[in-house]
């Protein structure tokens, strides 16, 4: 019996993505390195010393982009989870799996740099306000997602359980959005945007590299 076109597409898609990702990753990595170098240059040699906070405010150049990425990556991950659940495509779940560790890392970095910035600026490493708490919940969502994926042996069931967790976790995002301070006009946006671009390229490169591993691992299973 001839396979339907949908079947062919479903089967061919991971292989096509595998080679496409392989072509894109080196370019993205170079772009990330260049943008990162430019961002560091702005952070340490262009941006002036802050009148109130002194030099410590230079942390903004990694803290804000890391916090952005922690949320953006979650949105993209939840998007792929929704696509996977509604269209039942393995590739969408694979993309979501590939994004989780990078998102977890940026969430950790946002918390770490936030704590280090908070100590000299507000006198405390950690305060239990909405912004810290919601970012911590975000970290637990990422870690929970990865743990759930690792704990369920049947890949199809794992895909679905993880996707449901990812979608339920989107409830946390408005909490972060409303609690972050409005940084417009208070930070040197240019440098933050350059570093943000570097983190974007880095994240895409890492997610595409990881999805290649996920595809090979699915092949092996």
């Amino acid at each position, binding site marked *: 019996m001839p396979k339907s076109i949908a079947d062919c597409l479903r089967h061919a898609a991971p292989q096509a993505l595998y080679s496409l990702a392989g072509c894109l990753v080196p370019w993205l990595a170079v772009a990330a390195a260049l943008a990162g170098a430019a961002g560091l240059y702005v952070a*340490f*040699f*262009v*941006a*002036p*010393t802050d009148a109130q906070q*002194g*030099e*410590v405010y*230079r*942390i903004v150049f*990694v*803290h804000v982009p*890391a916090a952005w990425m922690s949320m953006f990556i979650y949105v993209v991950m939840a998007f792929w989870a929704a696509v996977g659940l509604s269209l039942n495509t393995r590739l969408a779940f694979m993309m979501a799996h590939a994004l989780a*560790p*990078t998102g977890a*890392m940026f969430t*950790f*970095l946002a918390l*770490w*740099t936030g704590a*280090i*910035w908070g*100590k*000299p600026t507000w006198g405390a490493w950690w305060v239990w306000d909405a912004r810290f708490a919601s970012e911590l919940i975000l970290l637990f969502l990422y870690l929970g997602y990865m743990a759930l994926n690792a704990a369920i042996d049947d890949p199809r069931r794992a895909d679905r359980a993880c996707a449901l967790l990812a979608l339920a976790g989107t409830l946390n995002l408005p909490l972060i959005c409303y609690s972050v301070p409005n940084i417009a006009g208070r930070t040197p946006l240019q440098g933050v945007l350059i570093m943000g671009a570097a983190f974007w390229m*880095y994240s895409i490169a*890492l997610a595409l*590299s*990881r999805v*290649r*591993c996920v595809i*090979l*691992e699915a*092949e*092996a299973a």
Partner: protein
Amino acid sequence: MSWASWSEFVAMNGQGAYVWGAFVVCAVALALEPWLLALRRRNIVDYLRRGARQG
């Protein structure tokens, strides 16, 4: 911003521990992740190669 000397750059006006504590940990994390991923890739590629050889 121009720094008078290398040591002044490192000291960051006495806030060096905070500034470098943030930047160095970011650099380490951003380097560690691709490295761990390369290990994961080598594992699965080796596994698939072994399987292919044994037929």
